């Protein structure tokens, strides 16, 4: 039987593409995940924990390893082995921690001779480290041959102010209790009267909240509860139905619990 040309060409094309796919699947599979936010503000942290957190940032979110190495000279950026000790002598009259901080947030202020001025400010997008992360990273760099004495108060409050740019960080940890929030949702809040949420049934007066955390930001959810009119009405639903009184009727704890619960709806 004569095989039609279309079949032959089709099989040939599929075989070619399948071989490309096969090869791409046979090499190292590396995903690029969005970095997590680290917050140490107001928390107790030991120097050892701080250095460990800083090392993690050095290797991941900080993307430092792309150019810097420890114990090996690179062509793009200086070797960081012993930088904790060297930093104290880098600029006359400047302490080690002040020099390291300056290098991180104003890298062009002092460029080590022989290297191009290519380092970006780590507290600005796209790296966008926050204040806690800059603190931890400075501590890690100090630990490379020096003494760790940097404190959170040494990091200017302005550091990381634009870290999230116009987009919110991927995850925000709220102090609320999702379990208690679920109770608020079903009882005092009365949310189920108008919304469905996962396995909690509800009348479809308002939008289904089953995947709320997948599609909305925490700040929008908080604002929507406190000021439903100001946050706008989702297209396709009647405006002005959601009570504007939750800011008065819910306690602060109930509010945060409720938000924490809503953020579990993915």
């Amino acid at each position: 039987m004569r095989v039609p040309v279309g079949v032959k060409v089709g099989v040939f094309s599929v075989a070619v593409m399948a071989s490309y796919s096969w090869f791409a699947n046979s090499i190292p599979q590396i995903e690029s995940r969005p970095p997590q936010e680290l917050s140490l503000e107001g928390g107790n942290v030991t120097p050892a924990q701080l250095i460990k957190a800083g090392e993690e940032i050095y290797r991941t979110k900080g993307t430092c390893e792309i150019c810097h190495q420890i114990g090996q000279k690179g062509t793009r950026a200086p070797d960081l082995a012993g930088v904790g000790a060297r930093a104290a002598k880098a600029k006359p009259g400047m302490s080690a921690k002040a020099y390291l901080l300056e290098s991180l947030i104003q890298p062009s202020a002092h460029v080590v001779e022989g290297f191009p001025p290519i380092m970006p400010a780590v507290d600005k997008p796209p790296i966008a480290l926050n204040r806690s992360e800059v603190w931890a990273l400075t501590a890690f760099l100090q630990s490379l041959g020096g003494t760790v004495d940097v404190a959170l108060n040494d990091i200017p409050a302005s550091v990381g102010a634009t870290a999230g740019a116009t987009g919110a960080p991927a995850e925000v940890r709220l102090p609320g209790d999702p379990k208690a929030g679920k109770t608020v949702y079903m009882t005092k809040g009365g949310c189920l009267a108008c919304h469905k949420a996962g396995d909690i049934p509800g009348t479809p007066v308002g939008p289904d909240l089953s995947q709320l955390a997948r599609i909305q930001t925490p700040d929008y959810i908080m604002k929507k509860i406190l000021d439903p009119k100001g946050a706008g009405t989702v297209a396709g639903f009647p405006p002005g139905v959601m009570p504007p009184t939750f800011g008065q009727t819910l306690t602060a704890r109930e509010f945060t619990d409720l938000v924490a619960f809503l953020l579990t709806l993915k």
Partner: protein
Amino acid sequence: MSRGKPVGRSAPLAAGLLLAAAAVALLGLPAEAQEAAREPAYRAFPWIGSRLAVWAVAQLHLNFAAFILGVPIFAVIIEIIGWRTRDARYDWLAHEFVKLTFAAFSTTALLGALLLFLFVGYYPKFWTYMTSIFFPTYWIYALLFFAETFTVYLWYYGWDWLQGSRKWIHVGLGVLSNLFGTAILFVANSWVTFMISPAGIDESGALKGGVWAAITNFTWMPINIHRLIANIVFGGTIAGAYAAFRFLAAKTDEERARYDWMGYVGNFVALSAFIVLPFAGYWLGREIYAFNQTMGITMMGGFMSWLWIIQAILIGILFLGSNYYLWLGMERIPGAERYRKYVPPMLIILTIGFMVWATPRSMVITLDEARAMGGTHHPLLGFLGVMSAKNTVVNLMILTTFLSYILYRRANRVSTRPWVRTGMAVQWAAFGAAAVIVVFYGVYGYFVESIVRIGFSVYQVLAVLAAIVVVMAIDVPLFKGARSTGEIRWGTIAPRSQYVLILLAVTFTWLMGLMGFARSGIRQHWHVYGVLRDTSPEAVTPALGYAANVITVVTLVFFALVMFIFWLGGLGEKGKEAGAHGHAAPVLAGGSDQDA
């Protein structure tokens, strides 16, 4: 010459109207901006997720858009050749190419509208932000699309009407439709490139001055040029694959000869543009580094580093395939036997170049193996995995491919010029000098800093381009009025050569998908790099295996759609004598002593 009912008359009009409706909807967006800001940041697309939906539709749209923008560029050039040489074959061929474009035109518009709806519906916050920056360009885009649609209409439907003394008007329409098409490409590229390398905005992401600063960002012009050239390559390979399919399915020698010739022209177009494509790629890469070193280094040395190995393999296959097709083509040219001896050395250079280019810098090995080897870099192969070696071999591969073309070009010609020896000596000297310069800077690159080494690639590129210009400048007068050693036996090429054409089309389409993933992936978890963060659950940039699977599936869908559209386009010709529908199809079998 009469022309029957043209194909797809109503579909492009419907697509144009749909696009107009989409444009009107877009123009209303700013008025809704406040409301839109209160919409969810994301919505979840059922089953496959929003990202995959946008990815698939965007890649399909880009494939079709590249085809309908690329083909008319060389179609009008072919038409001009036919017009000036009064050779009807070229006019027929140009019309055939535009017919393919025309059939795909409406699908491109429909996919564009679908992509827009996906953005508005599933990424409303992102789209609102883009609108806040680029709203004025939406008007321009819509107007250009109208202009492009109607100009292509006139060009296609006026083919018979604007013949003879009015041919210049017809050619002018072809040129104009290309200008509109290129302008559309440039506008759309401003949106895409802004996402990679935003400019003209303040720290909060708001536009500082006019939109022009946002348009003329770092990567805009390099991507404009890169895409323009790549579209020509893509159009050439798809047209070549179409011709190959028709060749394989042909029932007569005449038909086989015609599509052999069409495939040759498609491959010639693709190859001519493909040779300069890597240079545009270098420029784009350099601008990415200039915009943001971190992005550049992440792209080349970070999680994406292995992507370039796959790219090297694909480009190596394209080089080898194109050359192999030329060598097979020489078998149907009397007199080409003289040049067979050059094939083995050229094959060796291409193969070695392929192997070096595909050599990874870091090996995938176990910890024990790494310890035994003294690191992740192989003591010998590690030297071949760096840019110095890769730039060198790619330039040598380009030179070799150009040599293949030159040999093909003169396969059945013997120059009668008295200065033939001198001319050829200068040509070989130009080849040799370029090769020496390329190798010299390749070796020297190992002994200098990276910033100096990057500059060397410019010298290597210039040497190759200079050689191409010098050789062609001599070759054209050298073989003008040359003695023929026999006519090209169109249609007698080995059938496997047609599978090479199909291989080239499939590989280049797949490569486009891969490069689309690279362009989008270097933004990582940012919709707009450093400005608008991707906070959706799908912000992860997937690994290469997943990306390759998506690219394969989308490419399959693309080719299925293309075959369906071409089949639809050919329905109008069913039952009619070949050549009765439009310009007379040329009779080529053994009837030409020209190469193109």
